[in-house]
């Protein structure tokens, strides 16, 4: 496998697209397809982890890309989500194909890279692409807030890794994890705080997630799924790697981060519960899920965390695209305005329902497997109060998703739907693609919920350090 291709091909496509603007969407489709096929193919033939050195300079001196089971699963998830998003919202892309290509390259880079500064570069590319995408709906003020916060955060991240460079003399994550070993250094506390603050903005953790609401409240399906699903995947996968494979957190830092993540989880679910607009509910639910994933990573539960993440991002693609589409066609995404809409349009109603039920974690859905794994893992680790919090929060989640579903399926008083403006544009034929895709995803979610997951486990069996340390030369 040559992981550099996952980054180089979209970039090349972007550079060509800017010369020949007419074929930009063709190039986007080709690059997305290439990435999807290439990752899936490599996952099938995957045997053991490799470290790909860029420019044939052995690590830690050159930049290396790390392809182990973990990053491979992350990359597959990312490229699947990205392909779904592009396919579902193809009409919305407009002039933004080049931006999407660059963000695809950047997100793949974020997951694969084995160098802290290279991660910074990819984060900045991704962030700039996100700023441009979020300015699509002309809410410049929110985009500006996002930009200021994001730039400050990445500056702090850079500050953190420079301090680490001063302490250890390297930026390579494998080299670093070897130097750190299992020791908790007091001097590492400051750079780690800065690094996590920097990552938290993109990963949407609580004190730094203020930008999400403004940016996404009115977002269309493309921008919404890009931020909620694709960016969340890349950032959280990288977050997990930093927490679990590289840095050893001191107890104080761990407790602090756990408190932040749990607060994110509970407060965001509470906020989602109190909202009436579909997209606001979904974005708060995403923030909450980010919190849950970070909690799991902090407890060393990598597989459950990835499962919860996968459940969240794939379900959210369907949920957000459907919501944004309904809002676009009816002028509102208030759940009481949309009463009974699924009764008329069953096809994507079913897809939406399946995704929502998977989010809640009902049995026989993928979400159930994910949550069950998480709870069992936490209980085995001797945790009592975290599972209780997660269960309570799941109940809240269940209540508001059920409220959405009952409202959207029950027509209520007759003619409710007709009151909406632009209702004449609301034609079934526009939704055939969306309906079919949501049905297929629904089926996959159900299948993943029923089938055993032993096959995935093999990607996580390999211990990151033990394998990778063999492939590093003396440094």
């Amino acid at each position, binding site marked *: 496998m040559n992981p550099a291709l996952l980054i180089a091909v979209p970039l090349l496509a972007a550079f060509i697209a800017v010369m020949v603007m007419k074929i930009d969407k063709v190039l986007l489709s080709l690059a997305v397809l290439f990435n999807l096929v290439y990752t899936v193919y490599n996952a099938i033939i995957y045997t053991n982890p490799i470290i790909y050195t860029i420019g044939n300079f052995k690590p830690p001196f050159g930049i290396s890309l790390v392809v182990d089971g973990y990053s491979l699963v992350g990359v597959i998830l990312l490229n699947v989500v990205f392909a779904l998003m592009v396919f579902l919202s193809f009409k919305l892309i407009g002039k933004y194909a080049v931006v999407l290509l660059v963000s695809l390259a950047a997100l793949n880079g974020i997951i694969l890279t084995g160098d802290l500064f290279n991660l910074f570069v*990819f984060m900045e590319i991704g962030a700039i692409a996100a700023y441009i995408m979020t300015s699509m709906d002309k809410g410049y003020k929110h985009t500006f807030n996002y930009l200021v916060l994001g730039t400050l955060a990445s500056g702090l991240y850079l500050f953190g890794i420079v301090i680490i460079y001063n302490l250890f003399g390297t930026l390579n994550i494998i080299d670093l994890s070897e130097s750190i070993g299992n020791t908790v250094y007091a001097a590492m506390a400051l750079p780690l705080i800065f690094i996590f603050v920097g990552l938290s903005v993109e990963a949407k953790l609580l004190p730094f997630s203020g930008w999400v609401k403004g940016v996404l409240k009115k977002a269309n399906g493309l921008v919404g799924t890009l931020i909620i699903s694709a960016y969340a995947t890349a950032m959280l996968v990288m977050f997990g790697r930093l927490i679990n494979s590289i840095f050893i957190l001191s107890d104080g830092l761990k407790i602090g981060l756990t408190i932040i993540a749990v607060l994110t989880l509970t407060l965001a679910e509470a906020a989602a519960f109190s909202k009436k607009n579909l997209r606001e509910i979904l974005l708060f639910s995403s923030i909450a899920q980010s919190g849950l994933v970070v909690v799991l990573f902090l407890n060393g539960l990598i597989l459950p965390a990835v499962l919860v993440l996968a459940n969240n991002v794939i379900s959210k693609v369907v949920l957000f695209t459907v919501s944004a589409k309904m809002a676009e066609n009816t002028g509102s995404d208030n759940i009481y305005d949309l009463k009974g809409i699924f009764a008329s349009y069953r096809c994507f109603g079913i897809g939406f329902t399946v995704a929502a039920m998977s989010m809640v974690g009902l049995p026989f859905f993928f979400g159930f497997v994910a949550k069950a794994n998480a709870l069992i893992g936490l209980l085995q680790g001797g945790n009592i109060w975290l599972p209780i919090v997660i269960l309570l929060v799941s109940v809240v989640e269940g209540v508001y998703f059920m409220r959405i579903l009952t409202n959207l399926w029950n027509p209520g008083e007759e003619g409710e739907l007709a009151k909406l403006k632009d209702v004449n544009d609301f034609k079934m034929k526009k939704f055939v693609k969306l309906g079919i895709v949501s049905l297929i995803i629904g089926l996959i979610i159900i299948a993943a919920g029923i089938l055993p997951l032993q096959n995935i486990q093999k990607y996580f069996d390999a211990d990151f350090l033990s394998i990778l340390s063999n492939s590093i030369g003396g440094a």
Partner: protein
Amino acid sequence: MKQVISIILVLLIGVLIFGALYFSSDESLKFNEYGKVNLADRVSEKYIDKSVNGGSGVVEYQKSEGLESGSANYVTSIIVNYRSFDTLGEVTVLFISAFGVALLLGGKRKRQKNMFEPNFILKHGARLVFGLMVIFGVYMFSHGHLTPGGGFPGGSIIAASILLLYMADNEFRAKMKSLKATEGIAGSLYVIIGLLAVVLGGYFLANFLPTGIVGDLLSGGVIPIVYILIGLKVGSELSGIIDSFVTKEVE
């Protein structure tokens, strides 16, 4: 009130930073103080000896030959050889932000009048200086492996020379089509050189040309080529940004 809160917050952060960096009690791992750095503890030592993949150790100016990275300027050898992937990303950052600026300010555009009416001498003098600046810019990025500078400042100087033309002439407008073409071609060639290295050497962005003698103009393998591409790309992208800012949308 707001200012007071800001000052208190900033002071807290400051105390945190200074306390953790300079007054740490941990003896096992300490922040290296300013100037008291031992390069042997860092990866940089091997960049200076150019011995990442093995090698004799001592590099001498105008004598050593056929090294893994043939640039006399160490910063250039890091930027274009050892950490070339970062540089590709860096170029992409500029690319995407130039694209974004054009997209945001977008639409059909026309020149904005300058604050003053340029006279004859200014107009023609600017053309002269323009030529000199372009030559200087080209010199800078083609000598990036020998002298300070390189692709980024070189490209910026070219962009600055175009800025000069904008300032000196109320009618002047750079040809956006050719800027886009330069940008796209230079970027694509950079990636293609990287992919070519995969075919020839097996590694993305590897240096597949002979590196020559350290200090010669024709040395460093792909470094001069890549730096020229970067210079052209940066120059056209920054010119594009300048154009977006100097013009305004046609109503």
